């Protein structure tokens, strides 16, 4: 058996086959990360690592590599640096990967990134020199071979590289073959887009099992009815099931006490996600859960409970 190298807690847990939980942090358009750091601290006891987003929706925020470094430094929580290929060319990204290592970053998630045209600087030049699969390939070359384009790196970086997958994608066939490419490129873990449809998720995960890449399932526990409704309306390609929306709405309408409302939302999330996750685990389709709900750190103890029991 070949020795599995682990450069991070995440890498180690995946290698050992532990069932893990990761979270997500979304730094904003600011130089002050105190809110994000506060959230990271709340999340830290429950997750093995947290992703740090890279200007999602093409809306510019503080640079994700800098934010990842600062959050790790301030909290000790290991992060997964999200790097999109939208804003930097191959040469720039290769430099950033070395820089990220030097700053103590040990996990990177390779993403395409939402097009610049969608964001708040639509006049920016979209780069996309690499794509999400070739970024994975680049990281693996730098880490495993210690080279870039065959040229030696004096002290090569050591990072684990993951990629995204979308179980909601239609046609699913194209998405599955695309994940095959990412696997071929050397992707070490997958974090999926948010899912709510169990049958579809089972079908999808069963299809990609052949690539033998550990999958962390993307879930989005909804903090409030407004959040659920907003997610359903504004996130393209993902819809929140009608019965969930109705249930969440009833909390908003029928429960006046804020504290009680919160408890009910948390409880309902627990009740929805527990059987969902348990079913997928039973079928041996998952390596863990990636919770994408930002600004909802109080849900983590419940999620931890789900994965531990």
């Amino acid at each position, binding site marked *: 058996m070949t020795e599995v190298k682990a450069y991070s807690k995440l890498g180690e847990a995946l290698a050992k086959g532990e069932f893990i939980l990761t979270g997500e942090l979304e730094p904003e358009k600011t130089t002050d990360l105190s809110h994000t750091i506060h959230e990271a601290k709340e999340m830290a006891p429950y997750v093995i690592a947290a992703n740090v987003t890279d200007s999602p929706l093409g809306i510019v925020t503080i640079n994700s590599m800098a934010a990842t470094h600062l959050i790790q430094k301030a909290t000790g929580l290991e992060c997964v640096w999200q790097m999109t290929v939208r804003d930097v060319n191959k040469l720039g990204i290769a430099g950033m990967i070395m820089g990220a290592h030097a700053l103590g970053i040990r996990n990177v998630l390779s993403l395409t990134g*939402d097009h610049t045209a969608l964001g708040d600087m639509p006049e920016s030049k979209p780069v996309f020199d690499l794509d999400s699969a*070739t970024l994975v390939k680049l990281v693996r070359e730098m880490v495993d071979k210690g080279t870039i384009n065959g040229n030696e790196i004096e002290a090569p970086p050591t990072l684990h590289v993951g990629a995204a997958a979308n179980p909601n994608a239609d046609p699913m066939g194209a998405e599955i073959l695309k994940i095959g490419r990412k696997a071929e490129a050397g992707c070490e873990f997958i974090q999926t887009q948010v899912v709510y449809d169990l049958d579809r998720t089972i079908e999808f995960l069963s299809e990609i099992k052949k690539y033998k890449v550990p999958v962390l399932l993307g879930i989005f526990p909804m903090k409030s009815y407004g959040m659920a409704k907003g997610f359903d309306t504004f996130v393209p390609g993902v819809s929140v099931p009608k019965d969930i929306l109705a249930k969440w709405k009833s909390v908003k309408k029928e429960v006046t006490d804020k504290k009680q409302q919160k408890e009910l939302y948390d409880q309902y999330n627990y009740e929805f996600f527990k059987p969902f996750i348990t079913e997928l685990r039973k079928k041996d389709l998952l390596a863990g859960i990636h919770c994408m709900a930002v600004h909802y750190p109080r849900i983590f103890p419940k999620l931890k409970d789900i994965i531990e029991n």
Partner: protein
Amino acid sequence: MVVITTKKPEEEVFEALNNYKVKNVLVVSCGVCAALCQTGGTEGAEEWSEKLKERGFNVINTIVSDDVCDNRVMKKDLRKIDDDVKEADAILTLSCGLGVQSIIEVLTKTHPEIPVFTANNTEFIGMTERIGRFYMRCQGCGNCLLNETGGICPITTCAKALMNGPCGGMVDGKCEVGDYEKDCGWILIYNRLKELGRLDLFSKLRDPLDWSKIGHQREVVWR
């Protein structure tokens, strides 16, 4: 193949001419691509000549040439009207960007002092469905991938020109850019390769484009 052009806003053109204090204008109109796009040809030449006169310019002559972008054609056509060229403060071309630069190239020795302006915006190399419906399907990348992608160009039909799509922005076969109205190029490729029974080609991990070959002043010179 047609170089697709659209009309510049008139005011922008007049401003450019005024900025150079132009009085006497020679109009050179393209009889091929721009004629098809209704930004040149005989009609365009007449239209511009009227507009210029209304604005107080003196139109010395208007000519319609086949292939303004062909140096040989321009040399011949401009030589025939050399007296008009001499009299002109400026040339206004109703062609694509190639036309402007072709005229400059041809006049550079004999009349380097004459500025050449364009009345059009050059959009892309286009495929014609019918007049008024032109589509970008190739960007001339210099290393055509069509044999591997079922004949559909990822560089042109994918909004991010990805080599390994579709990206997470695809929803129901549509692209995130432009409000999910346009087809995702990588789904077009997927469907096409599926029809051809060649999804093995779709599965292939493709390297990024080699910009050392694309990004420069390119030329094709074989004689």
